[in-house]
């Protein structure tokens, strides 16, 4: 996975969004005031309407100021108590069943089983929790109004805002409970499903007698487990490691009776990437903003030509030895991850990949390391550990240290990448190369993923409660469900509503279908055409408005990070939390106003 867009810095983002929020709230306030006045004026006449509107605003202000946490908690307890029984148990049992049968269908032979298992549990949990939130929130308030139990609530000194907030809290508590239970279960499921080890007998290992290997090094194959085997390399002391298969490797230790392989490593990781700034040097060796275009439509990546002076230079900042230290102490290498694309003008050996090289340079002293070559295969994330002991490019006798010599005093380093084969090109974008600093805890990252799901759940609950203050239970459920579906595919809907409309909007498409007209032939000009186009553009405009109003659930989902083994940045999480809170605030306010202005009795 690469992060194609930068995560904006928190403070500028906050200021920007806060200003946006203020404008939205102001617009909503004015809009609802006008709408409320119009309704009141139609019902009571213009003068009385004004009085009624004023009264509503004043009582709303009083209600919001006098909202009591004690009563909210009492109502939340009620909602919790109402739903704690059957529904929660049903949802949990459902999840258990899903997990039980999942083992049949999740293939451990996939190239990256960690990703498969994680994406499965996260999406299963996400779906289940959102469904639970949908059902809980849609049926409760309309049920209370229908069974008239609401009478005994609203005749107590309970403000309508407390009813909305109490329900939101109660159902959130239920959802949280389910989420916690499924989270623990999922974690255990994933960890235990992926946990395995292999065996290797001393007789399976043989001495390597090739150049480039140290004396005493042995290699051999492990036994077959979890549908794969590893190549083991051990040094003279008998300790070593395996190669990477299915996204993981094992440590090998010498025991009295033979060799022992540890648990799989690297499969459940939370990488913390450090991104850099990309600049180019063209084939003549001059600075350039971009590389060259190879004529692809997607201009995300630009290319450097092989075997020329062209390089792609990344500058990384704020580095220190500490950021890369591991649990075993100071770092032994600088981990660099690359996912470059390759454009070939001749086929070469597809299997072998294209050779590239890396140089590290201190931007202040211009001290440069000797080149480190690697092979790029398309569509593969290469994780290269460049040993910290390097040799000066200018003076082969001088040993240098990456952390001491190549990282400048203010923590900067340049990574220079070249394509070493003539006629071949490397394509790259800023996010394609990153330094991998010390990994974060996977368990914490997993928890962060659940926090994303939790936010989605709270938003669904709030939407359900908001709709249920006005609509009956089935209609509420439909509305909430529609919001979830549209929110999940928000980007697609936006594209649909604002993209190029081949064949026009729904009305035009229907006419084309009925008249068997193809998508590109223009409609016959006239009254009909303009009516159809006006209707369609009104519809698409409405779709855009609705899409804008509904939450974009995919932005809250951090599943991609977890599944691909990246740490969810704290700033991103904070952004999600804040934007969800702002959204909730508006939704609750609308819910309150709906409930306030309606008669709960019939």
């Amino acid at each position, binding site marked *: 996975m690469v992060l194609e867009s930068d995560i904006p810095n928190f403070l500028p983002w906050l200021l920007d969004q806060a200003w946006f929020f203020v404008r939205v709230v102001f617009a909503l306030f004015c809009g609802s005031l006008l709408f409320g006045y119009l309704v009141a004026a139609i019902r009571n006449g213009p003068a009385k309407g004004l009085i009624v509107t004023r009264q509503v605003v004043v009582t709303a202000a009083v209600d919001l100021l006098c909202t009591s946490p004690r009563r909210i908690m009492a109502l939340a307890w009620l909602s919790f108590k109402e739903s704690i029984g059957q529904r929660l148990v049903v949802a949990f049992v459902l999840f258990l069943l899903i997990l039980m049968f999942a083992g049949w269908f999740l293939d451990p032979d996939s190239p990256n089983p960690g990703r498969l298992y994680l994406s499965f549990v996260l999406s299963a949990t996400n779906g289940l929790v959102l469904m639970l939130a949908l059902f809980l929130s849609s049926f409760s308030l309309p049920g209370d109004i229908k069974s008239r139990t*609401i*009478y*005994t609530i*609203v005749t107590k000194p*309970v403000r309508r805002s407390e009813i909305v907030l109490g329900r939101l809290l109660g159902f959130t508590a239920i959802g949280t409970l389910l989420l916690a239970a499924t989270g623990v279960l999922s974690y255990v499921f994933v960890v235990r499903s992926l946990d395995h080890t292999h065996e290797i007998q001393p007789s399976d290992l043989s001495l390597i007698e090739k150049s480039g290997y140290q004396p005493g090094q042995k290699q051999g194959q492990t036994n077959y487990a979890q549908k794969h085997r590893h190549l083991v390399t051990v040094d003279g002391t008998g300790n070593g490691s395996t190669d990477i298969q299915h996204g993981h490797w094992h440590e090998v230790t010498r025991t009295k009776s033979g060799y022992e392989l540890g648990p799989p490593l690297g499969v459940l990781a939370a990488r913390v990437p450090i991104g850099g700034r990309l600049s180019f040097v063209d084939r003549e060796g001059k600075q350039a903003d971009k590389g060259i275009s190879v004529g692809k439509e997607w201009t995300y990546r630009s290319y450097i030509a092989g075997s020329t002076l062209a390089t792609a230079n990344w500058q990384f900042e704020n580095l220190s030895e500490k950021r890369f230290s591991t649990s075993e102490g100071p770092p032994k290498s600088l981990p660099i991850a690359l996912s470059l694309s390759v454009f070939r003008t001749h086929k070469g050996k597809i299997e072998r990949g294209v050779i590239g090289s890396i140089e590290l340079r201190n931007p202040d002293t211009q001290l440069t390391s000797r080149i480190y070559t690697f092979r790029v295969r398309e569509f593969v994330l290469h994780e290269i550990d460049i040993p910290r002991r390097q040799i000066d490019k200018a003076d082969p006798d001088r040993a240098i240290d990456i952390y001491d010599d190549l990282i400048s005093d203010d923590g900067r380093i340049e990574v220079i990448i070249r394509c070493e084969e003539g006629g071949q090109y490397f394509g790259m974008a800023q996010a394609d190369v990153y330094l991998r600093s010390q990994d974060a805890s996977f368990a914490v990252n997993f928890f962060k993923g659940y926090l994303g799901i939790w936010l989605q759940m709270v938003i669904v609950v709030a939407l359900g409660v908001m709709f249920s203050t006005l609509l009956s239970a089935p209609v509420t459920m439909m509305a909430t469900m529609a919001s979830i579906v549209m929110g999940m595919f928000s980007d697609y809907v936006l594209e649909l509503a604002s993209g190029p409309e081949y064949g026009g909007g729904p009305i035009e498409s229907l006419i084309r279908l009925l008249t068997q007209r193809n998508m590109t032939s223009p409609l016959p000009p006239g009254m009909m055409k303009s009516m159809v186009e006006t209707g369609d553009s009104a519809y698409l405009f409405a779709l855009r408005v609705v899409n804008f109003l509904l939450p974009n659930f995919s932005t809250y989902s951090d599943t991609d990070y977890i599944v691909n083994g990246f740490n969810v940045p704290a700033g991103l999480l904070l952004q999600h939390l804040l934007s969800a809170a702002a959204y909730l605030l508006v939704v609750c306010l609308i819910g309150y106003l709906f409930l306030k202005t309606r008669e709960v009795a019939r």
Partner: protein
Amino acid sequence: MASKSRSKRKHSAATKPANPKPAAEPIAAVAAEKTAESEVVIETRNLSKVYRDFWGRQKVQALKSLDLEVRKGEIFGLLGPNGSGKTTTIKLLLGLLFPTSGEALVFGTDASDVAKNERIGYLPEESYLYKFLNAEETLDFYGRLFKMSGVERRRRTAELIDKVGLRWARRRPLKEYSKGMTRRIGLAQALINDPDLILLDEPTTGLDPIGIREMKDMLVALRDQGKTLVMCSHLLADVQDVCDRIAILHQGELKELGRVDTLLQLSGETELRIANLSDEAQQEIKAVIERDGAKLISSKNPTTTLEDLFLEIVRDSEARPGRRAKGKST
């Protein structure tokens, strides 16, 4: 010897909605004077309610220009056949419905004001309670909606459960309750905040005769504590027994308003109830009546009401279990 006098009912002049005080007749005027001394708890002015359908078209005019005043310390009955606007009035007073025109004031503030609910208790037509809670949880929950400390809430909960006689079932979820038990816990929740004003919608429905008697006794006891009660009912006997004043509604209009004793008093008729009277004495009394030029409408052994009889039998059998109640079934 007990005597009751009955004759034709007198109309008080309160049928005109614009005039809230029925002061045309001397007795009603006295009553009005008496109540005028205490503070007005409920006041409706020109209160009207129209039910509309989804499109805003008028469906029913449930209440037409109602003017009422209920004063502190009385039991006020709203009387009328089904669909006469009793429940609508109560819902308007509670802010469950919004008036189409006119206003409803409770404790001097608008009925839609939430703060007034601190001093109000409401027993709905059927006790709409949460079935998954038990009696203790129910009262505790409603208690938490008021400014009550935990200690006070627990004390009050225990007290009320005892008062409505549900101590034996206090841990059972309400879904297992019979209708009468639900009614009792409903009353308990209405009293959780020790309200000054209690609104009761058909308080005696679903109760057995003992329950009805206990409910009535409780209502009177509450009145005696200085609380104001407003109840609506179509059971005349209940209203007659407990209410100080009543309003009779029909098709959303106020038809009658006044003190119960005044409204039911029948001047010009005399009823004698005498125990152990010999036949000769009966003849003599008839002769006296004839001599006086009065007309004897009927003469018979008076019957007790069914309610009284039932209660007596039950009390008798509770006092002496296993025996038939004496002398009633011969």
